[in-house]
C-alpha cells in the first residue's frame, strides 16, 4: 500500500486529509509541523508528502528543501497545500523542490484526484 505523509499544523485539516486518503485506500501518517515530519520521513519511507506551507517550527518550504536533500526523497512527489493568495509561495516552494501544489480550499474528491494523479 502506498504511504503518504500529511503535514499540517491544523488538526482538522490533517484529519480531513488523512481520513479522505485512507478511505481512498492509502496508508497515511500525520505530522503537526515540518520538524516532526522531517524526523518521520527520515525513519520511514513515504511515496508522497503533502504539506501545509504555514507551520510553526519548520514551515512547508523549509521542509520541502530539507526533504529534497535526502537521497531517499530525491524524486519523491512533495505537494504543498497552499491558499490561492500565495502565488509567490508557490514559486518559492517550486524553487525549494516541491512537485506541485493543491490550492485550499479543496474538497475530498479534488484531493483524491490530485493524489491519484501523482502516485495512483
Amino acid at each position, binding site marked *: 500500500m502506498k504511504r503518504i505523509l500529511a503535514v499540517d*499544523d491544523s*488538526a*482538522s485539516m490533517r*484529519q480531513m486529509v488523512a481520513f479522505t486518503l*485512507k478511505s481512498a485506500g492509502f496508508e497515511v501518517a500525520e505530522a503537526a509541523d515540518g520538524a516532526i515530519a522531517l524526523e518521520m520521513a527520515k525513519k520511514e519511507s513515504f511515496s508522497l508528502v503533502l504539506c501545509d506551507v*504555514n507551520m510553526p517550527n519548520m514551515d512547508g518550504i523549509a521542509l520541502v528543501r530539507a526533504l529534497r536533500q535526502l537521497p531517499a526523497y*530525491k524524486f519523491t512527489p512533495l505537494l504543498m497545500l497552499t491558499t490561492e493568495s500565495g502565488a509567490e509561495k508557490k514559486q518559492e516552494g517550486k524553487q525549494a523542490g516541491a512537485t506541485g501544489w493543491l490550492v485550499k480550499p479543496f474538497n475530498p474528491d479534488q484531493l483524491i484526484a490530485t493524489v491519484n494523479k*501523482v502516485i495512483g
Partner: protein
Amino acid sequence: MGIDLARFHQTFFEESFEGLDAMESALLRLSPQTADREAINGIFRAAHSIKGGAATFGFNEVSAFTHLLETLLDEMRAGVRPVGGAEIDVLLRAVDVLRELLHAARDGGSADPAAVQQIGDALTRLLATPAADDGTPPRAAPSAAPPGTWRIRFVPQPQIFTSGNDPLRILRALSQLGELDVCCDTTRLPGLADADPERCYLAWELVLRSACDREAIAEVFAWVEDECELSIEPWRADGDACADTSASARRQAAEAQPLRLIEGGRTTDGAVAEPAARTAQRTESSSIRVATEKIDSLINLVGELVITEAMLQQLARTLDPVMHEKLLAGLALLDRNTRQIQEAVMATRMLPVDFVFSRFPRVVRDLAAKLGKQVRLQTVGEATELDKSVIECIADPLTHLVRNAIDHGIERPAERIAAGKDATGTIRLSAAHQGGHIVIEVADDGRGLDRTRIIAKARERGLAAAETMSDEEVWRLIFEPGFSTAETVTDVSGRGVGMDVVKKNVDALSGTIEVASTAGWGTRITIRLPLTLAILDGMSVRVGDEVFIIPLASVAESLQPSPGQIRSVAGCARVIKLRNEYVPLVSLREIYGVRTGAHDPAHGLVVVLESGGRRIAAVVDELVGQQQVVIKSIESNYRRVPGISGATILGDGRVALITDVAEILRIGSRAQAA
C-alpha cells in the same frame, strides 16, 4: 466518494477557538514599539489556519472575514504595513467578531450583522490605505478558444525528475481530457555511455482532440511550467502533415498511447482520432444528513414488521400447503423482502470504525510525549463498519486500552534499545469482520504482561490466584474489579477505572474480550462484538411455560445428558461431565424462578453456554427453535433485571426474555462457590 466533512467540524471549531485565544493574547502583548516579528507570524498562522479550515468546511462567512484579517496580518508580517495602535485595536475587535461568527456557525445562530459589517469595513478601510495590496494575484481572463484540436509541444528540462514530477503523469492527465496522440521526440537522447538515468532527455509533440479550453490544458502543466518549454496552440487537422485520418490510423490512435518517433523534428506518422464523447466523470457526493431519531424509529418499525411477519409465518404453518399454495408463496416472498428491508435499514446505521480510530493518533501523540516515550500508531481496517450505538459504546474502552498500552505496555526508548528493539514502540489498532461479529484488536510490541506480578497482586487483593494457573487464566485476573499492577498510579491510566470497567462495557455490548501476551514481545487485546445491538440470532428454549431466548453466539452445544454424566460436588453444587471436563450445571428454572418444568436435568435438556472463555451448562425443558429476534430494552421500559439482557416478542405475540449469559455464568460461579 461521499465523505461527510461535518465529522471534522468539531475539531475545526475547537482548534479555531484555541487559535483565536492565542491570537488575542498575542495581540494584547503586541505594542507598537515592540512589533515582534515572530509574534505577528504566530497571529498570522492562526488566522491562516482558521481561514483554510473555514473555506474547506464551507463556513464561507468565516473564511471571507478571516481573509481580510489575514491579508492585513500578511502585510504586517512582510513589514509593508506598520503595526500601529489603530491596527492592533481593529485586529482585536476582529478577533471578537470572528469568535462570534464561529459560534454562530457552530450553533446555527447568526452573528450580529452590524458588528461584522462595521469591523469588516474597518479592515477594508485599513487595507485600502496606500500600503495595501489585497494579495490576490490578478486572474487571467479565461481564454475563449473554440473547442477542437490542440497542438502541444512539451520539452521538459533534463532535471525535471528532481522536483518529483514525471512527464508520464502529465501525458496521462492530458489523455483524460480527450483523445491524445503522442509523438515522442528522441533527438536529445545521448549515447548510452553519456546518458544519466536521472535526467530526462525526451520531448513530446502532442495532438489533443478535446472540447476543453487552453486553460484546462495549461492547468495540467501548472506544476512544471517553469521546468519546461511549452507551447499550446489551436490546430486544425486538415492540411497538416501530422494528420492522417485513415481508418487504420484511427484504430491505432484509439489504442493506449500510440508512440511514433519524430526524426530530426519531422513527423513520420501521426493520427488524429475522432473525439470521444466523454461523460463527466465527477462523482457528486450524494449523501444526506438524517437525524438519528428518524433512523431509530425506522429500525423500530422494521422490528415490528419482523415480528408481524414471524407471526404470519407461524399462523401459516397450520395451513394446508396444497390449498393455500399461493398464499404460502406470497408469505415466502414477504419473508425475503422483510429480511432485505431489515438489512438495508440496519446498514443505514452502520458507520466506519474510523469514527473511533481517528481520535487515536492525537491521543497517542500527546500521551507518548507526556510519558517520554516514542510510539507509532498503526491502524488497519478503519473502513470496517459497525452499528452507531456500538461505536459510541466502544470508544471509551478502546481509549482506555490504548492509554494502557502506552502507559504500561510500551517501554521507554532506552529500555527498548537495551532489549534490542526499535526505540519507537508500535501500537496497532485493527478492525475486521468475522462472521456476524466485528473483531477489534489493540496490540502493542511492549514489555508484555508480567505473570508473577499479576499473581502477586491478585493475592494481595484477595483474589484466588495460583502459580499453576494457565497464562490465559492469569491474564483474566486483570479484568477483576480494582486490579491494577502499575507500581505508581499515574494520571494517565490509573484513574481508578481499570480493565474491569473495560470488560463491563464490552459485556454490556454482548461482546467478549481476550488477552494474549508474551513477555518482552507485547500484548494483544481482542474485543469481539456483535455487529448490531438491535437484532440478535437467538435460540429459543422452553423452561416450564416460559420461553427464553439465548444468544446463539453463546451456545456451545446442547445435549440430553445421561444420568451418569451429572455429579454432585460438595453436597449441593452440581457439575456435568463433558468429554473429560467438568462444567458447572445450573437450572434456568431456579435462576428465573419458574415454577413449572423439569428440575432434574435427566428429564430435560442441557444447553452449554459460553462467554468470556468460561462455560456453564443450563438445564432447560425443550429447544423450541432458532430465530432472529428484535431486541427490546427492558431497562428503558421497566428496570434492569438481573440475568436478563432484554426482551422480544415472539411470532405468537408472547413476550420472551433474552438471557444474559455473562450474568448466568456469574450466578453459576457464585452458586458453586457457596
